[in-house]
C-alpha cells in the first residue's frame, strides 16, 4: 500500500493533465465537428493532414531551420567552450556567466528585445544600412539568431561540464608528446566531446521542431504567415479557425514525427557509441560554475 500512497499525488496529476489530454487528442482526431455536433470519420483527418500542403511546408521549414540553427549554435557553443578551456583565456568565470546569461531571459522577452533591434522604427542604424532583418526573405535567419543567442551558452555549459570530467593527466601526456593547444583542442578535446555534441544536436533539433514563441511574438512587428511553423499552424487551427479535431490531429501527427526522430537519433547514437566505447568519459561529469 505504502508506495501507492507516495505515488498517488503524482499519478493523479499525471493521468489527469498529461495522459487524459493525450488520449483525448487521439480520440477526437477521429471526429469532425459540423454545426457543433461531432461525427466519427475514422482516419479522414489524418488523410487530410497527409495531403495538407500548408502543414508539410511548415514541417519542411522547421527542418531546414533546425539544421541551420543547430549547426550555427553548436559551432558557436563549441568555440566558446574550447576557447574558455585554453590556458590563454582570462576572466573565465566572468565570460562564462556573460555567455550563459541570455539563457535566463525568457524566450518571449528575447524575441521582443531582438525584434525591436531588428525593427526600423527602433534601430535607426538599419535605415542607413538599407537592410531589413524582418523582411520575408531574411526572417528565418533573424529567428536563427534569436534562438542561437538564447541557447548557445546553455550548450557551452554542457560541453564545459564534459571537459571538466577529463583527467588532467591526459592533457599532460598529450603535451609531453608535443601537442600544442590547437592540436589539444582538435585531436583530444573535440573527440571527447563527441557524445555530448551528438546529444545536444538531437535536443536542439527536437526543440526546433516545436518553434513557436519567436515567430509568434514577431507577428506584432512583421507579417508572418499563419502556417510559418507547425505549432503556429496548429495554434491558429485551434483558436482562429476553431477546428479543434483537426488541430488535435496535427498535434498527434507532430508528436509522432518528433518521437520518431528522437528514437531514430537515439538508436543511431547508441550503435555509434557501442562502436567507440572509450568515448563518453566525461559525459556525467560534475560541472563547474
Amino acid at each position, binding site marked *: 500500500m505504502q508506495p501507492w500512497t*507516495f505515488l498517488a499525488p503524482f499519478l493523479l496529476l499525471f493521468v*489527469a493533465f498529461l495522459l487524459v*489530454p493525450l488520449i483525448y487528442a487521439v480520440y*477526437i482526431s477521429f471526429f469532425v465537428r459540423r454545426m457543433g455536433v461531432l461525427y466519427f470519420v475514422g482516419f479522414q483527418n489524418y488523410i487530410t493532414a497527409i495531403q495538407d500542403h500548408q502543414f508539410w511546408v511548415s514541417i519542411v521549414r522547421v527542418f531546414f531551420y533546425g539544421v541551420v540553427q543547430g549547426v550555427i549554435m553548436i559551432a558557436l557553443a563549441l568555440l566558446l567552450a574550447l576557447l574558455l578551456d585554453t590556458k590563454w583565456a582570462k576572466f573565465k568565470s566572468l565570460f562564462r556567466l556573460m555567455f550563459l546569461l541570455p539563457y*535566463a531571459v*525568457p524566450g518571449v522577452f528575447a524575441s521582443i528585445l531582438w525584434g525591436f*533591434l531588428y525593427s526600423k522604427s527602433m534601430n535607426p542604424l538599419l535605415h542607413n544600412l538599407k537592410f531589413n532583418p524582418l523582411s520575408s526573405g531574411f526572417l528565418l535567419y533573424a529567428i536563427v539568431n534569436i534562438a542561437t543567442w538564447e541557447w548557445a551558452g546553455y550548450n557551452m555549459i554542457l560541453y564545459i561540464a564534459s571537459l571538466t570530467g577529463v583527467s588532467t593527466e591526459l592533457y599532460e601526456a598529450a603535451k609531453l608528446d608535443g601537442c600544442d593547444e590547437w592540436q589539444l583542442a582538435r585531436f583530444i578535446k573535440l573527440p571527447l566531446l563527441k557524445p555530448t555534441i551528438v546529444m545536444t544536436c538531437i535536443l536542439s533539433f527536437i526543440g526546433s521542431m516545436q518553434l513557436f514563441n519567436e515567430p509568434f511574438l514577431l507577428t506584432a512587428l512583421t507579417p508572418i504567415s499563419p502556417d510559418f511553423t507547425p505549432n503556429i499552424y496548429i495554434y491558429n487551427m485551434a483558436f482562429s479557425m476553431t477546428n479543434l479535431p483537426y488541430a488535435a490531429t496535427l498535434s498527434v501527427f507532430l508528436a509522432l514525427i518528433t518521437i520518431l526522430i528522437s528514437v531514430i537519433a537515439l538508436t543511431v547514437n547508441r550503435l555509434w557509441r557501442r562502436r567507440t566505447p572509450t568515448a563518453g568519459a566525461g559525459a556525467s561529469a560534475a560541472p563547474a560554475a
Partner: protein
Amino acid sequence: MAQHTGSATAQMRERTGVVLPQANYRAVRAKTVATQSVVTLILFILAFYFMLPIIWILIASTKNAKELSSTGIFSLPSHLHFFENVRLLTTYQHGVYWMWFLNSAIYAVAVAVLTCIVSSMAGYALAKYDFRGRNGIFLLVIASLMIPGTVTAIPLFIVEKAFNLVDTYTGVIFPLIASPFGVYFLRIYIQDVVPNDLLDAARVDGASAARTFWSVVFPVIRPALVTLFLISMVGTWNNFFLPLVLLNNQDLYPLPVGIESLMSLINTPEAAMTVPLYPLIITGSLISIAPMIIGFILFRRQIVTGLTQGSVKL
C-alpha cells in the same frame, strides 16, 4: 627546500643543466602574451554579442516614446525617463502589469514548491519500494519525457474546459506540477544518495512511513530539491505557450502573456495612438527579466548543476 624558492628558469638549469637562451625565452613569452590578447579580444567580442540586447534594453528603458524612435540604440537621452516609464506602466489599466507580475510569482513559487513535494514522494516510491507495476510506471515517466509540452497544450485546453479549469490559477499550476522530469531526476538521485541502512534504522526506531519520508529522506535530498526548485521556478516563470492557451482573462496572465498582449496592440492603430506602447513594453520587459537575471547570477552554481545533470545524464 632551496629549489622551491628559485625561479622556473633557475630550476630548469639546476635540473637539466641546460641554459635557456634569454632572447628565445622572451620571444616565447611575447608570443604567449599576443595569443592571450587575441583570445581575450575574441571573448570580448562574443561577450558583446551576448550582452548587446541586455545593454540595449537598459538604455532603452530610460527613453520616452519620441526618443526611442529618433535616437541611436546606444545613445543616452539627455533626461532619464526610467521612473516616468515605470509610472506609465503602473498606471496602465489600473496597474494590470503588477497583477501580471504577482501572477508570475504565484505560478512560479506554487509550481516549484508542489513539484518538489509531489516528485520527491513519487521518486522515493519508485526508488526505495519494490512493488508490482514499478517498472511500468517508471517507463511511462521516461516515455512521457519525449512528448513535447506544446503537443498536449491544446487537448489540455479542451479537457480543462470540460472541468471548468480554464481561466483559473489551478488550471495553470496543476499541469505543470505533473513533471516527469522531476520524478525521473529525484528517483535517480534518491537511489544513489539515500542509504537503505538509514531507512531501516528509522523503521527499527518505530518511525511511520510518512515520518521516515519527511524527517529522514527529505533532509538528505535537499541539494537535489534546491536544484529542482530552481529549475521548475525558472521554467514556470518563462513558460508562455501553456498560459497563452489556457487563459483568456487578462487578470490571470503571467508576465510573458501579458507583455505579448501589449505587443499585439502595436498593430491596432487606435491603441498605438493613445498609449505609449513602446516604452510600456520595453520597461515592462526589463522588469520581467530582472528577477531572472539577478536570481541567475546569485544561484548560478545550483542552476548549472541542474542543467548539466538534467540533460547530460538523460
